[in-house]
């Protein structure tokens, strides 16, 4: 219990029972016939200066979670508390001053920058929108930012198409950084980039975190990238967190069968190990979130599923210190925690 109270003090962001249902409307009268349960009851907190990652397959609700945290969309239920302030249902006007504190980095560096605006305009927009005066004028501030993310400040008047993918992602990072936010939500920040460029951007994000004391929520499907960047990892499946633990812990002893399967599916860059690896292959695809399986949502693809899994929903409980799992038949429970 002490761990929870401690983390509540240091937490920059606390999420409590967060839900988002998208109504499905059909027919002439556009009557609601159902709801996509994109996010269904998330609880977690993110500690100041740390990185929490959300992983899962497509359609598991990762991106919706990111858009909820940045309040680009309004939650159906639950609370989002940023530095002690409940922002779950703030109006757009009330949210505006808080937008300085929460910024977002998008996946696709091609569609997230306006092709008709110069880099100067794009990176300077936050100052203008928030009416922030800087000491030496906006242009100087923008040039400092460009230099900080490793771009040439003289490229101030260039357009996005003149830059490569990695450079565009740096422009997006400079824009997110402009107002010195406290929290950055990065939705697949490196998945569109080549390996060599990906490493440059990951290092940049880590340097900026140290320099400005940033807190990150990283949404990603690449488990290797997540392992490298995160302090804490939440694994989502069909709108729910199935496992939540410290990064070193979850990679050393994944307990939820879904986490085990995800990790076993990642190709390992070691051809000599391909014959010796113990592989678990999930069958089929993620079921539709419109009509998720009852009780444990993973039971339709789980090799350990028994009758109870389709009748009683497993709660997310502590199976080890700071290691929560929602499963009736978890793996690796007896395994000792990893040594520091």
């Amino acid at each position, binding site marked *: 219990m002490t761990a929870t109270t401690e983390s509540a003090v240091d937490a920059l962001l606390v999420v409590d029972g967060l839900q988002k249902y998208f109504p499905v409307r059909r027919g002439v009268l556009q009557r609601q016939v159902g709801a996509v349960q994109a996010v269904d009851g998330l609880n977690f907190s993110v500690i100041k200066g740390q990185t929490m990652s959300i992983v899962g*397959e*497509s359609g598991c609700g990762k991106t919706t979670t990111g858009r909820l945290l940045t309040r680009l969309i309004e939650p159906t239920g639950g609370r989002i508390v940023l530095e002690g302030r409940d922002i779950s249902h703030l109006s757009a006007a009330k949210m505006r001053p808080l937008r300085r504190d929460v910024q977002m980095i998008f996946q696709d560096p091609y569609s997230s920058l306006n092709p008709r605006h110069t880099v100067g305009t794009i990176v300077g927009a936050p100052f203008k929108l928030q009416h922030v005066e800087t000491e030496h004028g906006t242009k100087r501030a923008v040039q400092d930012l460009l230099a900080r993310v490793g771009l040439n400040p003289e490229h101030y008047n260039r357009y996005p198409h003149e830059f*490569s*993918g*990695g*450079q565009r992602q740096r422009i997006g990072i400079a824009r997110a950084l402009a107002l010195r936010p406290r929290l950055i939500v990065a939705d697949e920040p490196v998945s569109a980039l*080549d*390996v*060599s*460029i*990906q*490493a*440059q951007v*990951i*290092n940049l994000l*880590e340097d900026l975190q140290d320099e400005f004391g940033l807190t990150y929520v990283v949404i990603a*499907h*690449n*488990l*290797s*990238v997540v*392992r*490298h*960047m995160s302090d804490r990892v939440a694994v989502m499946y069909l709108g729910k967190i199935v496992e939540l633990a410290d*990064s*070193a812990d979850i*990679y050393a002893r994944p307990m939820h069968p879904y986490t085990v*399967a*995800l*990790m*076993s*599916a*990642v*190709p*390992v*860059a*070691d*051809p*000599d190990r*391909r014959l010796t690896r113990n*592989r678990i*292959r*999930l*069958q*089929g*695809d*993620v079921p539709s979130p419109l009509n998720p399986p009852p009780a444990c949502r993973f039971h339709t693809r789980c090799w350990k599923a028994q009758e109870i899994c389709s009748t009683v929903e497993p709660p997310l409980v502590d199976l080890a210190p700071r290691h929560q799992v929602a499963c009736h038949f978890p793996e690796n429970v007896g395994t000792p925690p990893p040594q520091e």
Partner: protein
Amino acid sequence: MSAFLEVRDLRVYFPTDDGVVKSVDGLSFSVERGKTLGIVGESGSGKSVTSLSIMGLHKPGSVELSGEVWLDGEDLLVAGADRVRRLRGQKMAMIFQDPLSSMHPFYSIGHQIIEAYRIHNDVSKQQARRHAIEMLGRVGIPQPGARVDDYPHQFSGGMRQRAMIAMALSCSPELLIADEPTTALDVTVQAQILDLIRDLQTESNTAVVIITHDLGVVAELADDILVMYAGRAMEYATASKIFRGPEHPYTWGLLGSMPRLDRVRSERLVPIPGLPPSLINVPPGCPFHPRCAYQDRNGDACRTIRPQLRDVGGGHHIACHLSDNDRSTIWETDIRPNL
């Protein structure tokens, strides 16, 4: 006797208003039946252009092709469009990255497989349809008899990729080229598709060329690996040589920039500085030299003389001016400890 697929000194140039884009510039490799070659490289390294040239899918007139592409003793570059069209589908087939945009949205999955099958085989519609259902079943589509009349949009991403594999394999090709076959898919589905390609290959002794940017994927599948950069081969060796003892600075860079799932969170990744070059204006000498930490080891050689692919022992080929001594010292002291 040459290999089943043998590419010799392939060059693919695209003349544009801004200059000639040298997408592939002197590439040679070979693949035997039943073996898998992985071609690895970043975007713009010429991987996909290479595969399109083998398949004869470049628009005539838009491209200058030279070199030789021998498939089972026949040079495809001199064979003529009609002959290549006959071979395409029957003898060689290709799987693309994005199954949604490589299938026709107006026709059912079954229709598209039947069409391809009937072009190469003199069979009735009923027979072709039975064959299509059988193929869909083989690639793991549940209830293939019912799904054969579905349209591409009714399939999930993983199922579309399976359907495309079914289509590619419907005429039992002897060469299968897979261009980023799993890039658009989730890891769990990716694992299923890689297993499927491996199983089908073992079953029919197909030669497979898999093109990807993901070193993990080639490590899973490939027997041999070709690392490309700026349209040229940088390193070419067996998979275990490439991963156990890579010899080229670019391969070192790729391995160093890659976060690993099987290792503890290390201090920092070691990225390759800078950007890949423009293919209109490839740097003189070694195309990688502007990003290479060891470009000064051999005087001006790296900046002026183009390194040729050479055997540095036991069929391990690299295009690099570094001496054997330099490479083994650098690998032992600078590279290996940081991987």
